[in-house]
Every structure is written in structure tokens, then in C-alpha cells.
């Protein structure tokens, strides 16, 4: 038997590949996802190089500065360089949170084979180590040029090699902590949650961790600007994990003042490792208790669900609205997608809110007002396509036959209407309602006019992006990245800049003159209503789509057609 054919190797390979399988994409969709990921990787490499270029200018200036200035800056930059891999590793581990431990399917299938329990656990652990290791190594390799750049100046204060070793050890420990932290959270969950609540807790934890990570991203990007905080030993450093590991790096290089942060880093890593190990050992002994399900994780309704809500509204529209609502409430995957995407938008907003000067002089404070006019439009701009995407992720394709059999002409328009309502509620009404109290606090009663225009713009944007929508949410196969990814990114960025700038100006005018608000709201409202009518007409004439397809690369010109 060759090494490749040994059961533990086969099993590890199986667990490793299944970590990349979310079970929702067709073969064509999975292929397309690979292309998208490759495109994203290319963008990340380009971003990394751009980052190196930015830092090159900074360290070029620091080359002529005294050693204290270099030390002051490098601490904050290293916090950023450690936080970025931590964020990526934690995100990757969080995405596969449902597969971190052998689950019920493994128990039922593998235990029926002549495989020992220890082999199953060891293989799962090996697959996880490979998976985590892939991201740890990948991110560190990607950031290597930048790290090398920041370390050149270390010659002024000591050995470059020692500084490099200290940085590498601390950064790898930081990524290890991030991975172990996620494993520990899920391990505790499996051990402590009751069988009936396990899936619900698991889904909630995954959503919260993903949302938290996305919200934290702007904070990560702000780390290079925190040199002052490190210099003054700011209180919040004790609550920022990347700062702990920078403390560890400095402590390894002989800076005793960072001993407390270093101790926190070591304690946290050992603690996370101990909990993760304890969870694994405990589960090893009580494998039959594990009830994670690999396929289609869903929550059970928390209480008696009445059937009355199904009777509301037009027949098909009411049914689809209720179906969407229950799917988002109970499907761990879809909830994660919605929370994750909304948290991404929230993260961007949080960043701008943190940048704003909150010591404003009153309602007329221009910078703060501008920020608060920009914020809801940014969230709406990002949330509408995000929720549209979430509705496109399929639930169980084999079950969609009931929608195919019950399709009718009026029903098509009602399906589109239900989908638009879901996007309006989650991507327009919810963000505007969440930000409205803040706007009212800063702008006073004038914000009512702004809210009116915001709602009209949001509605118009939804109608524009849902104009050709002809699928029941969660029932159509999905192929990600059907377009040319770089082109889409450029278009999206350009649209974002134009949209937020233009709507910001309109909202500012609306705040100053209520008549302008009324005119703008009327124009946008009437246009959106007209688009709604057009959408309904289009939907009636177009069959519902249940299979996504890549658009043909070749468009025939038909020059010889009659």
C-alpha cells in the first residue's frame, strides 16, 4: 500500500477537501467560484504590492530619522502586519466552523467502517492543521515583502535577524491564536450546548464571529495610525489581540515595558489551545454525543409557529415573503451570508464614524453632517447587492420542483415583488432605521426630509438592481462571478464613488431646503414606481429561472440575418 492509499491519508484528504465544500454550488458553480477566488487572490496580491509601495515611502523617510522615530512607527505597523493574517485566518476558520469537529455524518458513516476512533479524530485534526496552515503560510508569504521593508530599519536599534525572528515568531503565534480561538469557541459550544440548541448556537456563533470580524476590519486598517497609543501605553491595547503579540515581539527583543502585553499573548494562546485540546479530547470520549450535521444545517423553530402569517397578502407573494423570512431565520448558511454581508457594510460605516470629529459645535457642524449623510447611502449601496446575492444562494435545489410545478403568470410578478420587498426591508429600511436616531440627534427635525429622500433613493436603487429578477429566492442554482471579475470591481468602485457623492449632495440640499427634498423624493419615487410597473410586466412575460448559467462568451452578430 502506497502512502497515498493509507486510510489515514485518504481520510485526511477527504476531510481537507470537504472543508472547501459548502454543499450549495453545482459543479459549474464550484468551478466558477474557483475562478472568482483566483481573481480575488490576484487582487489581494496587487493590494499587497500597493501596500508595500505606500509603506516604502514611509520607511524611506524613516531611514533618515532617529532610531526612536523608527521604533515608534514600526510597533504600530507590526500590529497591522500581525492583525491582517489573524483576521484572514480567523475568518477562514470561522467559515468552516461547522466542520471543525467530526460530526454526526462522520459518526454514522465512518464508524461503520473498520476505522478506529483515534484515526478519525487524528485525520480531522490533520486536515484542520493543513487548512489553517495554508492560510497562515499564505498570508505571511503575501506580507513578506512588507514585513522585510519594516525590518530593514531594525539595524539602527539591534540585529535585523533577531528582529526578524521575533517578528516571525510573534506573528505566527498571533495567527495560531486566531485559529485556536475559533476552534475553542466551537469546541465549547459542542460541549456545553444541549442537543436541541446546538445547531442554533452554532449558527448564531458563526454569524456573530463573521459579523464581528467584518466589523473589525476597519479597525485593523487603522492600526498603522496607532503609534501614539503604543507610545503612551493606551488602556485599550490590553483589549486588542494584535497589540498583545506586538507586545510579545517587543518583549522578545528586550523591551520589559511590554511584559504585560506579552503575558496576555502567551496566556491567550495557551488558553485557546488548552480549550481546543480539551474539547477534542472530551469529544473523542463522547463521539456519539456530537450532533453537528454537515449538510443543510438549519434551526428548529423556537416555539410553536402559527400558520396565520401564511395567509397575509397576495397568495404567492405572501407565501414567498414568509418562505424568505423563515429561511433567513432558520438557515444557518443564509443567516451567515446576510449577517456577514451587512456587517461588511457596517464595518465601512463604522470606520467613517470613528474618523468623524464628534466634538461638533451643533447641528450646523458640516463635517459630521456630511459623514452622517454619506453613511446611510453607503450602507444602502452595499447592502442592496449584498442581500440580492444572499437571496441567490440556493437552499435545497432538489426541493425546488414545487415552485416549478406551481408557477403561474401572475405568480411570477408576485415572486419578483416578494423578492423586492425582502431586499427593501433588509437593505434599505433596516439600515436607514438604524442610522436615523443618530441623524436626528445631529441634524434635528431636518433629518425627516433627509429620511424621505434616502428612502426614495433606496427604493429606486432596489428597483434598478432587481429589474430583471426572475427567480424565487433560494431556489435557483448559483454560479458566482459570471462576469469578468476585475471589470466588475472597477465598475462597482466607480458606481460607488458616483452614487455616494451624488446622493450626498442631494441629501445635503434636502437638509437645507425642504422643498428640494420634496421634489427629489417625488422624482425618485415616481421613477421607482414606473420601474416597478415595468418589472411586473417583464416578470409576467419571463419564466422563473431555476438554473443559473454562464452567459455565452460569443454574441453572434447575425449580419446575414434577414
Amino acid at each position, binding site marked *: 500500500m502506497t502512502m497515498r492509499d493509507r486510510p489515514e491519508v485518504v481520510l485526511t484528504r477527504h476531510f481537507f477537501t470537504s472543508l472547501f465544500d459548502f454543499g450549495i454550488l453545482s459543479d459549474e458553480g464550484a468551478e466558477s467560484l474557483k475562478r472568482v477566488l483566483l481573481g480575488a487572490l490576484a487582487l489581494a496580491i496587487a493590494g499587497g504590492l500597493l501596500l508595500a509601495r505606500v509603506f516604502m515611502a514611509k520607511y524611506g523617510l524613516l531611514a533618515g530619522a532617529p532610531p526612536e522615530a523608527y521604533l515608534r512607527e514600526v510597533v504600530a505597523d507590526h500590529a497591522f502586519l500581525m492583525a491582517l493574517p489573524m483576521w484572514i485566518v480567523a475568518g477562514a476558520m470561522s467559515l468552516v466552523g461547522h466542520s471543525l469537529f467530526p460530526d454526526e455524518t462522520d459518526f454514522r458513516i465512518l464508524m461503520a467502517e473498520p476505522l478506529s476512533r483515534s484515526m478519525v479524530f487524528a485525520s480531522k485534526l490533520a486536515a484542520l492543521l493543513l487548512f489553517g496552515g495554508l492560510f497562515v503560510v499564505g498570508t505571511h508569504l503575501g506580507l513578506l515583502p512588507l514585513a522585510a521593508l519594516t525590518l530593514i530599519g531594525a539595524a539602527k536599534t539591534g540585529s535585523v535577524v533577531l528582529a526578524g525572528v521575533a517578528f516571525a515568531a510573534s506573528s505566527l503565534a498571533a495567527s495560531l491564536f486566531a485559529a485556536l480561538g475559533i476552534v475553542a469557541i466551537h469546541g465549547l459550544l459542542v460541549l456545553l450546548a444541549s442537543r436541541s440548541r446546538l445547531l442554533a448556537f452554532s449558527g448564531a456563533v458563526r454569524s456573530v464571529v463573521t459579523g464581528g470580524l467584518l466589523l473589525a476590519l476597519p479597525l485593523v486598517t487603522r492600526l498603522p495610525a496607532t503609534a501614539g497609543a503604543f507610545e503612551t501605553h493606551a488602556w485599550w491595547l490590553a483589549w486588542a489581540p494584535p497589540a498583545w503579540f506586538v507586545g510579545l515581539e517587543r518583549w522578545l527583543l528586550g523591551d520589559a515595558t511590554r511584559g504585560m502585553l506579552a503575558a496576555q499573548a502567551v496566556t491567550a494562546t495557551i488558553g485557546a489551545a488548552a480549550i481546543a485540546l480539551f474539547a477534542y479530547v472530551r469529544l473523542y470520549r463522547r463521539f456519539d454525543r456530537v450532533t453537528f450535521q454537515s449538510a443543510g444545517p438549519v434551526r428548529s423553530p423556537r*416555539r410553536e409557529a402559527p*400558520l396565520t402569517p401564511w395567509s397575509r397578502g397576495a*397568495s404567492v407573494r405572501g*407565501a414567498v415573503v414568509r*418562505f424568505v423570512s423563515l429561511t433567513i431565520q432558520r*438557515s444557518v448558511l443564509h443567516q451567515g451570508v446576510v449577517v456577514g454581508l451587512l456587517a461588511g457594510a457596517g464595518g465601512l460605516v463604522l470606520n467613517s464614524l470613528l474618523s468623524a470629529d464628534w466634538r461638533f459645535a451643533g447641528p450646523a457642524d458640516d463635517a459630521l453632517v456630511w459623514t452622517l449623510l454619506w453613511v446611510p447611502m453607503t450602507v444602502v449601496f452595499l447592502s442592496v447587492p449584498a442581500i440580492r446575492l444572499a437571496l441567490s444562494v440556493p437552499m435545497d435545489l432538489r*426541493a425546488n*420542483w414545487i415552485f416549478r*410545478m*406551481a408557477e403561474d403568470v401572475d405568480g411570477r410578478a408576485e415572486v419578483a415583488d416578494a423578492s423586492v420587498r425582502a431586499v427593501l426591508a433588509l437593505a434599505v429600511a433596516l439600515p436607514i432605521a438604524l442610522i436615523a436616531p443618530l441623524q436626528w440627534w445631529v441634524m434635528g427635525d431636518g433629518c425627516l426630509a433627509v429620511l424621505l429622500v434616502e428612502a426614495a433613493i433606496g427604493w429606486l436603487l432596489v428597483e434598478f438592481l432587481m429589474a430583471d429578477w426572475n427567480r424565487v429566492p433560494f431556489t435557483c442554482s448559483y454560479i458566482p462571478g459570471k462576469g469578468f471579475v476585475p471589470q466588475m470591481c472597477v465598475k462597482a468602485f466607480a458606481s460607488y464613488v458616483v452614487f455616494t457623492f451624488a446622493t450626498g449632495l442631494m441629501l445635503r440640499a434636502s437638509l437645507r431646503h425642504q422643498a428640494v427634498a420634496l421634489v427629489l423624493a417625488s422624482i425618485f419615487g415616481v421613477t421607482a414606481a414606473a420601474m416597478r410597473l415595468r418589472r411586473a410586466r417583464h416578470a409576467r412575460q419571463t419564466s422563473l429561472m431555476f438554473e443559473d448559467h454562464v452567459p455565452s462568451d460569443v454574441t453572434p452578430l447575425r449580419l446575414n440575418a434577414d
Partner: protein
Amino acid sequence: MLQARGLTKRYGGLLALDRVSFDLHPGEIVGYLGPNGSGKSTTVNLVVGLLEPTAGDLSLLGLRAADDPIGYKRQIGYVPEEPSLYAHLTAGEYLMLVGRLRRLPARTLQTRVPELLRLLQLQDSRYKSMTAFSKGMRQRVLVAAALLHNPRLLVLDEPFSGLDVNAGALLRTLLQMLAGEGRMILFSTHRFDMVEKLCSRVIVLSSGRIALERQVADFEQAGPDSLEETFFRATHQPDFAPLAREILDTISGQ
């Protein structure tokens, strides 16, 4: 009456169904038999409107599927082979979804759904999501969903799969009563005993073509195992003893 005329279905170069024609009259239960890959599921998918034929024609109660696919499908209740349903819903929620998609009045559903759940012995599990349901329980939900709108034609693909003895007997009696009231029932299965107990006529499919069409009563007169033997002959099945011997030899390494 359901009329299938010259039904043909090609998947690329593969001819799955080749000019299949049959009728199904009100009050009739027709057993649709065939080995795996014979085109049975393709026929069922064509009849319920989930697939469009490459050639041929389907009409139900005078309504051509090609002319009015929506009106055609409205008359049909379907129980698929796999218990594929949205398991994150409860049984009641799934039936409400199906009922509303089929445009049944809300008031009718408010009474009909709980009643069907009770009659199909699902009331104890009505507040649980169907992820926890056994195959038989899911099958019962699908049967309820197929009957919810009181269809004229019922198409059942292995409906007894996973059902326990009691639920199986209930479904058998129900189908006989539905046929007695004039419904048409197309019953696709691998089980000869069910065909003999339930159906009035049998159609046997082999390699995408009808190999045999006969009244079940003819087999009853010919004695036990007659349907099974006729099926093997009609579908050109090989002698199984040498095949079984080969499998034994393969696993014992001879």
C-alpha cells in the same frame, strides 16, 4: 383523460424516451414499471411538466401541456421519488407554502392543513422542522401536499418508499378511493406486489420504449409470479444466477 402521444426526450445525444404513447382514463390506476434507466423518471417528469418533451404531445382533460403549461400543471398532484422538500420548514408551514403557491384560499388552508396533518398522523410533530423527520414522515407530508388542491391527476413516484405498514395500507386504501371518485393515478414503482394490489393496468418500459401494456387482471388469472416473469421477459433481463455467482467470485477473489 391523460393522453401521451409520441413522447420523446433526448438529453444531448442520449435518447431517454422514444415515442411513448399511452392513455390514462378517469378512475384508473396505472402502474408504470421499468428497470433503472428505462425512462420511467423521464416520463414522470414530462407528465408532471417538470421537463419539456423533445417531441410528442401531452394533454390532460383536453388541455394541451404545450398550449397552456400552467393550466395543465394546476390539475396535477405529484409525489416525487426522493422526499425532497424544504426541511427547514415545519410540516404545516410546508403545506401552507404549497397551498398558497397553488392559490388555495387562506381560509380553506387554515382548516385543511391541520386536518390533513392529523389524518396523516403528523400532528405530534407539527411544530418541528422536517430535518428531524424520518423518510416515511416526509413521504406523508409529500402525499398531503399532492392532495392539498384536490387534483384530477395524481402522479406518484415510489410513494410507498419509507412508509410503515399502517401508513402504506392507509395510502393504498386512499388511492383506491380516489380512483373510485374518478381521479386518474399514474403510479411509478419497482414493486410488483403493489402493482398487483392497486393497479388496473400496467405499462412496462424498457430502454425508453413501451415493452408491454396489459390489464393487471390478465396476470392474476395466469397465476403467481406471472407479472414478475413477464416483466423480466419484456425488459430482456439476463439470468441472475450467473451474475450473482460472478459477484460472489469477485468478492472472494477467485
